[in-house]
């Protein structure tokens, strides 16, 4: 019993340690630079002692928005399809396929994006190919399983009486889906979208490989981009001293953003009453 309670404290301990270690390493630099200058500053030039992550934040925002544009409609459609439309012989294949999509390593996504999407974008749409668009496509597919599985669970949790009632009133299947099932499952669907947003914000290796990693803020989907995560992964290998602290400071911002996103998702799943 005592051992069990101790085990149960492991995630709490881990979360606190992660927060403490990353804050302790990154926060001094943020305070030294001034939070406003660090977060809004548009010049990241470790050689000159300039640490502004404004452009990186913009990059992360572009890429995450793009990923949601692709991942949300696809994820929702898959969930509705699995729940309401899929003929019995297809569903047993599609569900593990979606879960497999979540299991494929991010470096594999990045590499396949690099050898297929990047040249395709370069020849047909212009620009260097390494771009917000390439990141969005790769990330969109990567967050699709998260959105689909949370949505699927919340659609399944809608009492079947709702469905039957709607059909009994003469509603078509599509009307039942859009007017009854989706509204009833809305908190869960929103939570799935927010969890997907968290994944997109934090994804590193796949984005790094197709982003181009230019330090300018993108102005079009065809521009190269560098994200918060990509910046950490690119420079951690050789950074030292103040530069390394600045990377941990980037980690602090990332941690706070994702932590808030998850808190919102949690509140939504539990609903206003606090009950599941």
């Amino acid at each position, binding site marked *: 019993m005592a051992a*069990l309670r*101790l085990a149960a404290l492991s995630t709490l301990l881990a*979360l*606190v340690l*992660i927060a403490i*270690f990353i804050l302790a390493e990154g926060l001094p630099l943020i305070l030294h630079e001034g939070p406003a200058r660090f977060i809004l500053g548009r010049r990241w030039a470790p050689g000159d002692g300039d640490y502004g992550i404004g452009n990186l934040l913009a990059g992360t925002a572009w890429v995450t928005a793009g990923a949601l544009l692709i991942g949300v409609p696809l994820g929702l459609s898959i969930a*509705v399809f699995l729940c309401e439309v899929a003929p019995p012989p297809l569903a047993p294949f599609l569900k593990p396929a979606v879960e497999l999509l979540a299991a*494929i390593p991010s470096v594999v996504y990045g590499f396949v994006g690099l050898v297929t999407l990047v040249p395709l974008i370069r020849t047909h749409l212009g620009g260097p190919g390494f771009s917000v668009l390439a990141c969005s496509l790769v990330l969109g597919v990567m967050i699709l399983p998260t959105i689909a599985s949370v949505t699927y669970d919340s659609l399944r949790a809608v009492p079947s009486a709702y469905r039957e009632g709607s059909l009994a009133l003469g509603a078509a299947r599509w009307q039942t889906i859009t007017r009854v099932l989706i509204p009833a499952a809305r908190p869960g669907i929103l939570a799935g979208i927010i969890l997907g947003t968290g994944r997109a914000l934090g994804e590193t290796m796949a984005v790094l490989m197709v982003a181009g990693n230019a330090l300018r803020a993108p102005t079009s989907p065809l521009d190269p981009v560098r994200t918060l995560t990509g910046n950490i992964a690119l420079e951690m290998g050789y950074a030292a001293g103040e530069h390394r602290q600045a990377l941990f400071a980037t980690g602090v911002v990332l941690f706070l953003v994702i*932590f808030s996103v998850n808190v919102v998702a949690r509140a939504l799943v539990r609903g206003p009453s606090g009950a599941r």
Partner: protein
Amino acid sequence: MRGDRLAAVLLWGAALLTLGVLLALVGHVLARGLPVVDREFLMARPSSMGRAGGIFPTVVGTVALAALAVAVAAPLGVGTAIYLAEYTRRGRLVEMIRFATDSLAGVPSILFGLFGFLLFVVRLGLGWSVLSGGLTLAVMILPTIIRTAEEAIRAVPESYREVSYALGGTTGQTVVRVVLPSALPGILTGILLGVGRSAGETAAVIFTAGTALRLPRSLLDPARSMSVHFFILAREGISPDNAYGTAAVLVLAITAVNLTAYWLLQRFQARRH
């Protein structure tokens, strides 16, 4: 009714597109990678930075890292799940544990990498090593194992427990002899998912286990996992053939692990109904 038809077309389109993307992704990697993979590729040491030779040290590195991660995370995770499902009712502590577990699940792998680097590599002086990498991965897969195990334990019918108590079993006996055996397939599912995530992880491992391309001989030796090896080969353009070969092995292994996990869970759920 026209709306119905249009919707059906869109939903079918999304489903087929998703299946198509998965098949194209896996197909591309296997088509380019499998011709490279043979016994020699798996069992030989690499030479000239991975340009030639095999990937044996990275296979060993991946297995060692995933095994250590699971060896640490499985007891902690299953213990947490038992505690949450069998020993407590709602309370502040339980709320905090759930909050921490959910939050930990949302932490991106690069932050686990930074954390593992600061705590295990630097502060505890373990250096870039199998131990640092495995412990970092253990923290990362803990939420998955807890959630799956807790669900599996809660799915054990109440009547099983009642019978055990009626026969005079204590809570401990009931958990060990009745609840855990019937929840085992579900618990194994979570552990397998953890193995899969550990094997596919790059960002958390590259800063904690290092990139040394030697065969690790102890827990304190640095190790390069297959994912990290693939990343380095691909990104630095060292050898497209060996990169694809490594990716093919990785994708096959992870697919096998995940499909096994899925199959176990289906059987477990089918038995319940």
